[in-house]
């Protein structure tokens, strides 16, 4: 069965980003039915669809909504996470640029289900063009009665506010996002309390990823059963996979869960660039453990199968290493990222990311000591599960997996008698230690 296009159905339609174009393609058609449904019925429908969050953690969406207190005098809020910062991820951008009304329609579905009157869309600061497209769509939606007071005579009011970030990966974490939205540094909050109880402005808050919300119109139109029929027992529906690195045709590809990982990559992108050999695959963003070529060929692309390898589906950011890609330098790039983005409030994260980066940098620049590899492996466990957010884990997990699976490459850099052959780009620059 060909994969149905759920999220990407309108990506190639030239005018889908305008209200006129979206309506012509059947957009907003589900609203009539939606506003006749009771909020609990909508939550049930989303629960039955099996939809899980596409921002990284894969948490069941309907269940998340049901944690919001029903009897509260406080306003409730929706925060749409459009901060898209996980390295390798570039799919929310496509939704924002090409199908922003699907996001708005999804927001209406969530707001009606949970009883929310205000939704904030937190969009990363560098997304100029997506912001322009989204801003135009929101304006059009207001002008035509799809947002604002008494939407299409339903008695439902929903306001959407676009809030622009200013360059900080950590604001993608849901509580970092909330802090940032409140006008502070984006430093994550300890949980509990969870955002569902005490979220933005001290009120119950749903935080959902752009893609998660954009899947809702299809689910409400076609029904939970149709969605749940796609994929596997626990990984239902489709997901947008951002595939990049050393493949022939990088890009965003929608896929149903349960297919073979490498087959999916190969069929979507044409395989490894220039007919080179496959070395490794990162299946779910730079926070994920790495898979060897053999593992990538033998695993299925769904939450449980990937998790069983120690890696994760995460945000669906697949990165492909060819035979020439240096795993040691790749780890250096990854660790530099996390050391740079740590918000600094938890010592295991602040110190751990810094030292892991320092050590891999000295290994890669020929200053490594034989005991450095085990030193790194000893640091990693101390960074797991003991910090306010999982950024520390996101550095430690790839570090340990790159080293364990490609240890000989790290050793080669330390063996002074036999330094590895370096395939630097001609204009290549060696990054300097400490130059975070």
């Amino acid at each position, binding site marked *: 069965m060909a994969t149905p296009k759920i999220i990407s159905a309108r990506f190639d339609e030239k005018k889908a980003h305008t209200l006129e174009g979206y309506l012509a393609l059947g957009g907003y058609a589900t609203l009539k039915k939606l506003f006749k449904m009771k909020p609990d019925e909508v939550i049930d429908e989303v629960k039955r669809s099996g939809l899980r969050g596409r921002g990284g953690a894969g948490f069941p969406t309907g269940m998340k909504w049901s944690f919001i207190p029903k009897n509260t005098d406080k306003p409730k809020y929706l925060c749409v996470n459009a901060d898209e910062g996980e390295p390798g991820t570039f799919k929310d951008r496509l939704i924002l640029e090409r199908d922003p009304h699907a996001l708005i329609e999804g927001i209406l579905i969530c707001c009606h289900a949970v009883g929310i009157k205000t939704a904030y869309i937190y969009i990363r600061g560098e*997304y100029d063009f997506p912001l322009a497209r989204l801003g135009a769509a929101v304006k059009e939606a207001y002008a035509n009665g799809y947002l604002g007071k008494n939407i299409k005579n339903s008695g439902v009011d929903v306001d959407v506010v676009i809030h*622009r970030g*200013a*360059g900080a990966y950590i604001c993608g974490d849901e509580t970092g996002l909330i802090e940032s939205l409140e*006008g502070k*540094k984006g430093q994550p909050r300890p949980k509990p309390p969870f955002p569902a109880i005490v979220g933005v402005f001290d009120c119950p808050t749903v935080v959902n990823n752009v893609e998660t919300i954009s899947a809702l119109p299809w689910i409400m139109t076609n029904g939970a059963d149709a969605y749940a029929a796609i994929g596997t027992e626990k990984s239902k529906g489709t997901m947008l996979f951002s595939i990049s690195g050393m493949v022939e045709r990088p890009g965003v590809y929608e896929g149903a869960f349960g297919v073979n990982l490498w087959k999916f990559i190969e069929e979507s992108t044409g395989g490894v660039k220039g007919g080179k050999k496959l070395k490794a695959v990162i299946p779910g963003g*730079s926070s994920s453990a790495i898979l060897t070529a053999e593992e990538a060929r033998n695993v299925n692309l769904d939450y449980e199968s990937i998790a069983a390898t120690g890696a994760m589906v995460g945000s669906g950011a697949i990165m492909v290493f060819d035979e020439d890609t240096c795993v040691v330098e790749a780890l250096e790039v990854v660790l530099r990222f996390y050391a740079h983005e740590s918000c600094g409030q938890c010592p295991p994260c602040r110190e751990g990311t810094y030292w892991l980066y320092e050590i891999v940098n000295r290994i890669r620049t020929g200053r490594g000591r034989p005991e450095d590899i085990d030193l790194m492996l000893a640091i990693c466990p101390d960074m797991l599960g003991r910090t306010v957010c999982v950024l520390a884990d996101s550095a430690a997990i790839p570090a340990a997996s790159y080293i364990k699976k490609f240890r000989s490459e790290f050793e080669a850099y330390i063996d002074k008698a036999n330094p590895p052959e370096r395939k630097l780009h001609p204009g290549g620059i060696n990054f300097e230690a400490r130059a975070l």
Partner: protein
Amino acid sequence: MSHARHAIAPSGKPFAFSPDNEAKFAQLLPKYPTKRAVILPALWLAQEQEGHITVEAMEYVARRLEQPAVAVFAVVEFYTMFKTEPTGKHHIQLCRTLSCWMRGYQDLQGLIERKLGIGPGEKTPDGKFSFELVECLGSCGTAPMMRMDDRYWENLTVEKLERIVDACNQGRDPAGEDH
């Protein structure tokens, strides 16, 4: 967090929102239940108005939102896109993360360093260009890439970047070279 900055001195130039931004600022206030939440959007207005954010602008935003000045300073310091010094006319943000690394951002950095004579964090003496290495910009499928003049430049090669830089130098619209 690790973008430690030196204490910045007042510019000596008073700041106030332009009439345009005053109107935008008035529209922002009702969108949030607290004044503090308006700090980021107000700082964006200030930065768009002057190209960077002066101490005076921070103090102004704090006053307008009835916040302690330190709350605004802390925000400016935390976020990499808020600039406390003028950038070049064309501010190059070159991505250095995994996919752009695999696809050779190093060559592009090499070109910038050779051709413009500036490294990361530096500005050309004529003020035309400044250069910064940044983390993943969510455009990995079209790596290597950069952000400049509030837009993305994707699928870069050394040749293409050179054409873009030349166009800027010659006062032409670099968009014509984006092919």
